[in-house]
């Protein structure tokens, strides 16, 4: 009796899986006849869930904007997959998206998920456009369908160091990172560049992801009294408690952070402790009509996060290319992608041969509870 029950349950489970896939395939087969499927990949659960949702919402907003324009090619569907920033889940989700006949994937967030997920996707001739992974390696592996809408870590570190030497006239610097592909890569770049530009690196400490107590490290920083304290953390949720504790410790150094901590919730969480913090961030002119259009479309998802606009632009870029190519054929779309030249919400969109779209980092400062453009490394002048 029992054995039979078990057997039954196994069969049931197995058929569940098979049927689950089969059903989806049918549905998607229909969908691919009827339109375009775009996948989004990012951490919807786990530690970085907030950022993953920003990306997903950015893609959703873009689809909404583009859908009326797609004509016979439409409608555009979104298949949002969760990778939890875990390489294994990222690869599984990528394979699922291949199955679902997605023609482009917007994502992922963590460089450590983007890189492995790109292998099967690119092999299946699916476009992968990352709005958030700034690690250099992402686009430097000679992958034909890999694009990046955000900037690169090496450019970002140049802007940061230039700001410290030219504008802040600082002599000493202390670096802390939380050891992700992104945050540590950036911090290492800063350390190298700083040494060659005459900045003295007093220390470079690493904390672990998910830590909330930085008191031990901050005590060290306080004792070292650097001119600038460079904070390279994976996201705003880690940065907020850091800023609070910096305030509580009474550390007087200037604080410079990077683009991952850019998020409205940083100010919401750290409140007055966030005041006066500098950060490098891709220059976005929020007065352009393109940005306004994005902001309107995004309104229902709340305040845009750090990568919402990049995700939005990535989606728009792909759909524009599809529209121009008249089909989703990868070769044709790729040719159109390279021809793109338009004003996006985040920046001017033009992809280069390796898939990068260029960086335009500026220095922002948090002032009166807002991210405000502060200094432009291009001309060494303050924003008005």
């Amino acid at each position, binding site marked *: *009796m029992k054995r*039979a029950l078990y057997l039954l349950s196994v069969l049931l489970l197995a058929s569940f*899986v098979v049927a689950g*896939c089969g059903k989806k395939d049918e549905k998607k087969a229909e969908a691919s006849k009827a339109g375009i499927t775009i996948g989004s990949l990012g951490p919807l659960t786990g530690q970085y869930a907030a950022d993953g949702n920003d990306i997903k919402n950015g893609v959703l907003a873009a689809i909404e904007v583009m859908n009326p324009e797609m004509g016979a090619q439409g409608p555009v569907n979104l298949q949002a997959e969760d990778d939890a920033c875990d390489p294994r889940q990222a*690869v*599984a989700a990528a394979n699922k998206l291949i199955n679902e006949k997605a023609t482009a994937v917007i994502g992922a967030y963590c460089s450590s998920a983007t*890189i492995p997920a790109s*292998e099967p996707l690119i092999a299946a001739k699916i476009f992968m456009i990352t709005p958030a992974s700034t690690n250099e390696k992402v686009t430097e592996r000679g992958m034909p369908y890999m694009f990046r809408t955000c900037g690169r870590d090496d450019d970002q570190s140049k802007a940061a160091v230039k700001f410290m030497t030219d504008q802040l006239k600082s002599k000493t610097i202390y670096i802390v990172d939380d*050891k992700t592909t992104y945050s540590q890569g950036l911090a290492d770049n800063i350390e190298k560049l700083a040494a060659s530009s005459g900045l003295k690196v007093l220390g470079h400490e690493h904390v*672990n992801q998910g830590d909330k107590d930085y008191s031990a490290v901050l005590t060290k920083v306080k004792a070292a009294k650097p001119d600038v304290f460079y904070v390279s953390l994976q996201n705003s949720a880690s940065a907020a408690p850091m800023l609070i504790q910096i305030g509580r410790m009474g550390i007087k150094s200037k604080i410079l952070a990077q683009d991952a901590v850019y998020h409205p919730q940083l100010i919401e969480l750290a409140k007055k402790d966030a005041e006066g913090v500098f950060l490098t961030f891709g220059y976005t002119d929020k007065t352009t009509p393109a940005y306004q259009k994005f902001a309107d479309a995004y309104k229902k998802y709340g305040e845009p996060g750090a990568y919402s606009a990049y995700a939005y632009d990535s989606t728009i870029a792909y759909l524009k290319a599809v529209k121009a190519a008249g089909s989703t054929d990868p070769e044709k779309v790729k040719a159109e992608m390279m021809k793109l030249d338009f004003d996006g919400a985040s920046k001017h969109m033009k992809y280069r041969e390796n898939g990068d779209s260029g960086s335009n980092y500026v220095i922002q400062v948090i002032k009166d509870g807002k991210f405000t453009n502060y200094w432009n490394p291009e001309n060494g002048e303050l924003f008005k």
Partner: protein
Amino acid sequence: MTIRASKLWFGYAVAMAWFYVLLWPLLGIKAAGLEFAASFAIWSKVAVAAAICLVLYQVKQAGAFNFLTKPTERVGEAASAAFRRVPTWLSLAVVLALAVIFPLFTERYAHDVAISILVYIILGLGLNIVVGMAGLLDLGYIAFFGVGAYTYALLSVHFGLSFWLCLPIAASFSALAGCLIGYPTLRMRGDYLAIVTLGFGEIVRIVINNWMSLTNGPNGVLGIKPPGAYWFNGASLEHVWLNHLEQLYYIILALAVFTVLAVYRLNYSRIGRAFEAVREDQTAAELMGVNTLRIKLLAYALGAVFGGLAGTFFAARMQFVSPESFTFIESAMVLAMVVLGGMGSIPGVILGAVALIALPEVFRGFELYRMFVFGGVMAAMMIFRPKGLWPAKRLGARSEERE
């Protein structure tokens, strides 16, 4: 009967009131003021669903479904009788045949899930040696998986060693790690063992995460070669990379079958019985001349070997490894497979792996609710089948449990 029924409904009322008290503050207290609508909407749905379940249960207790359950029961009994007549080798052959032809009629995504399941079956069976057979609770098992994966990753990237050569190398490295971890834990019992193994698992992960010069830290190791093979293409032997999902599926299937056979043989060997003796009563085993220290070390080492094998394959399949794949929650998942399936039982562990890997994939449709449902189902499965889905036939309590 009526007394029981009224008690049931009284319990229901209390439970629902309690549930609302827990739910409302989460949804209803806002800085702007108090509101009840959102929480009440969810609550009423749950309350109705629970009431329906309760009514069905009562009706079933009253025997109203007998017309339905009786025949199904009879059919079930007949089926099980028929099943018992089928020789074991035949049913095994059928299962194996199904596994072999599986890729022919399924899609890429199903292959991917199936590969994951097979990897976890190996892991589960490996952990089963430690937990199920020898009765040592191990919360850091995924460390061996990591050791295996990184062994192959580094050997492949730096020295270009082939997958097949690295399988035994990684297995022996893992076994070594097993002994290292096992040694200091030998004196501990029960839950002290659990925390120490957990600690070791975390240490391995943190070291991998921070030893930049060796492991490239959190960036992971890229560019790992898939398994290679020589293929006779008519004229000469040609070297090909087996990086298609179907090919990888057959490799891991072979590894899994090997693992099942090995664990099966182990179960009925002298060593297997020694494990059992240690599990049931360590002191008595010692008095009977079992060298418990050696046996425990052996259990750790053997368990680690399979972890290492699975890890090697994992690295080759992903062509990328990073420390994030070896966190505590992964250890907990593997343990969950073993316990959920039925400790010490090979088909149980297989079933557990299928359930725990396939379920989240089945629930992918729920999106955000996926892990929420998964956690609930996991607890519910334990409550309704505390001995596991397919319990082992001979299995007593762990020796520490009887105090």
